[in-house]
């Protein structure tokens, strides 16, 4: 699974801390998700998409081998 969290966040001029506060998680979580080291749960993915004002499938994308 890939994600466009960093790209969308930067388009909206949000810092990692801003997004973390909006979602209610730690900044470390955002860093890990953006770098692809951590795949969030459905609940967190939905929260992130909502905080970015996007649909979850626009932020998190399934890859062929998923």
């Amino acid at each position, binding site marked *: 699974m890939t994600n466009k969290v960093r790209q969308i966040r930067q388009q909206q001029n949000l810092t990692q801390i801003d997004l973390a506060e909006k979602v209610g998680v730690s900044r470390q979580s955002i860093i890990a998700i953006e770098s692809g080291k951590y795949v969030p*749960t459905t609940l967190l993915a939905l929260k992130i998409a909502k905080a970015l004002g996007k649909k979850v499938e626009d932020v998190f994308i399934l890859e062929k081998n998923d």
Partner: protein
Amino acid sequence: MKTRFLLQNKFKRPGIILSLIGFAAWWWGQLNGAANIIKKIIPAKGEEVTYHPLTENQSAWNIAFLTISFFLFLGGFLLFIFSKEKNEDEYIQRVRLESFQFAALLQLASFVLFFIGIALFQPKNENSYVETFFILTIIFFWLLYILHFNFALYIKPKLTEQHD
């Protein structure tokens, strides 16, 4: 994700303070500090509290002090370890789990290596080695856990420049 096994974040700082006090007291106890004080307060107990490091003839006063200070240190250490982060979320809980696994695996490896070492070298005072190893291994496990947890959570992202 909710957990029943962690304390609130406010226990973290008292945990650090307690463990530092406990460790300092334990260190002082190793230098026979408690026994020396008792010796001054109750001179009649002078002989009783005399410490002979070569014969390991420690006084009961000092042994009691060492035991209390060690458990104070361990208690503070556990308070620190079992306190939540300010923003405990699912990612932090995953890192916590991985750190436990990491510490458990290395502890297992240390057990195997230690007993292979004992079997190979067969030291004369085997029991004292085993006793010391078991005491150290308690701290070793938690130290590994703390190192892995803090490295993965705070240091690694900085090293790989994944933050902005």
